[in-house]
């Protein structure tokens, strides 16, 4: 039973039933919204500072001690900017797109467990819900690109659809590995059954899931949707003001959400010794995010056809093989000896990655015209 349901029951004993039902829900929504917005602001600051240090700069450090108020100033600046809509834009779609990109991120947090019982709603199909909701933002990005009536945005929109569809498959297949091992789709159960974090039990699944999610949140090296050296700003080229702010929030909100999901599925969620669960959870989210920033500071981006090839020729077959390996192990290996599984799976992951790297070819990709 989640904390929220307990609170609901207690309220029900003193208040009328409808109030007892609505009040906790509202409180939950406010808490989740507050959490997302504050973490997004912190993450924006963190990313800018970290990127600065990776690039031997200091990063923003002028406003407030060590520049911590910089994201707030940025937000204010963006909000005060003029909202420009292109003359030939499809106005309604143009207006709706940022909302559709941003809203699903809040919905994802409904099933993210922050601690024991600290979950907004413990859906029994939690992980399926996450997958379903998170692919909604692809629609928003496509709408943005289409409605802007800008060629750069259109290219980005088409890339978005191709990329999201391709990377959803390996992501889901690697999630299945986790689900097989847990035997449940509920996020709470997934965390509770990780006495050994799944990153050790399923290293290959983790790598696939990580790369897939990085691709889904359009971060380097898969940030083709906003590849600034090619298509200016991608799908949000024609956005400014509040709408742009929503895209910006959406981008970082995605990063927070996926970091949370990665932490939940593979890093043991809120579990950890000594410190309270919520602290452990936050530490894990920040660690995942820092790694993503590190990748962004280092790696160039792939080309669009290589991106597709990577998903279909590399991640997807590996994910299928991984699923079979996990299934076989769950079926035949004795459950009392998980460490055998760790060793086995690391060996499998190493061998498979080495084998697949042989398929890696350099260059090419010219089309006869």
């Amino acid at each position, binding site marked *: 039973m989640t904390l929220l349901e307990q609170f609901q029951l207690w309220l029900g004993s003193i208040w009328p039933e409808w109030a007892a039902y609505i009040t906790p829900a509202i409180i939950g929504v406010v808490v989740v919204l507050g959490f997302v917005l504050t973490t997004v602001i912190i993450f924006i600051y963190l990313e800018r500072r*970290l990127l*600065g*240090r*990776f*690039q*031997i*700069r*200091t990063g923003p*450090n*002028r*406003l*407030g*001690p*060590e*520049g911590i108020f910089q994201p707030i100033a940025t937000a204010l600046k963006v909000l005060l900017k003029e909202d420009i809509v292109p003359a030939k834009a499809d106005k309604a779609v143009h207006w709706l797109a940022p909302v559709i990109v941003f809203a699903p991120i809040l919905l994802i947090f409904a099933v993210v467990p922050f601690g024991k019982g600290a979950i907004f709603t413990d859906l029994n199909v939690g992980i399926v819900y996450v997958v379903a909701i998170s692919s909604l933002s692809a629609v928003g990005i496509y709408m943005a690109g289409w409605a802007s009536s800008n060629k750069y945005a259109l290219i980005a929109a088409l890339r978005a659809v191709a990329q999201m569809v391709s990377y959803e498959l390996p992501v889901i297949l690697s999630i299945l590995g986790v689900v097989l091992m847990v035997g449940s789709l509920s996020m709470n159960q997934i965390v509770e059954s990780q006495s050994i974090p799944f990153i050790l039990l399923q290293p290959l699944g983790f790598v696939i899931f990580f790369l897939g999610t990085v691709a889904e949140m359009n971060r380097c090296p898969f940030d083709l949707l906003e590849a600034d050296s090619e298509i200016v700003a991608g799908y949000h080229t024609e956005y400014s003001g509040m709408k742009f702010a929503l895209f910006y929030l959406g981008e970082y909100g995605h990063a927070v959400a996926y970091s949370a999901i990665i932490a939940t599925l593979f890093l043991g969620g809120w579990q950890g010794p000594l410190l309270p669960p919520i602290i452990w959870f936050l530490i894990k989210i920040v660690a995942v995010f820092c790694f993503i920033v*590190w*990748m962004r*500071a*280092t*790696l160039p981006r792939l080309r669009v056809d290589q991106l597709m090839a990577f998903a279909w020729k590399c991640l997807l077959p590996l994910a299928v093989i991984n699923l079979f390996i996990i299934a076989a192990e769950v079926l035949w290996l004795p459950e009392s000896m998980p460490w055998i599984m760790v060793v086995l799976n690391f060996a499998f992951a190493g061998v498979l*990655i*080495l084998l697949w*790297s*042989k398929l*890696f070819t*350099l260059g090419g990709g010219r089309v006869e015209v």
Partner: protein
Amino acid sequence: MKFERYGIGIAKGMMVTFKHLFRSPITVQYPEEKLAVSRRIRGNELVWYPDRCTGCATCAKSCPHGNIEIVTHVGDENSYVVDKFEVDTGRCMFCGLCVESCPYEALAMGISYERAQYRRGDMVLSKDALLLSDIRRPSGYARPKVEVTLPKQTLLVYWDKDREEGGQKVNFLTLSKKRGRGV
């Protein structure tokens, strides 16, 4: 059979950025920290010494843009008196040719670099505006006697080493610790 393309290059690259995370940043927090510019800097605006100037207009002739406008009349003792000496610094490209060509060292490049103006008209400097003053000092460009009196330039080549700056040792690490206090 060689396994060389399995991500080892990516891992190496990540290590390079990781190493840089612990190197001190080379940012200079500009208004608070100012590095010493070159002793020969061809900085903004010119410095004009009316007592040395003979009104020969060599500088005006050597300027590629014709920025310098000089009007003189013959005074007593058979010398020129400069009536008008006007430089349009808005069109100046700070090439230094006028300073190099002046035979009497009556013209020098400035050492300052914070001379933005709101109006183009304000950039046209006349006789009085070009005089030597506290905010308008000559640089050592083509003026070796001035050059030796100026502080030595801060060089980025020594960024991880102690360096002399205005007599006291400063190093980039201590600089970076001082940073970040905000305005």
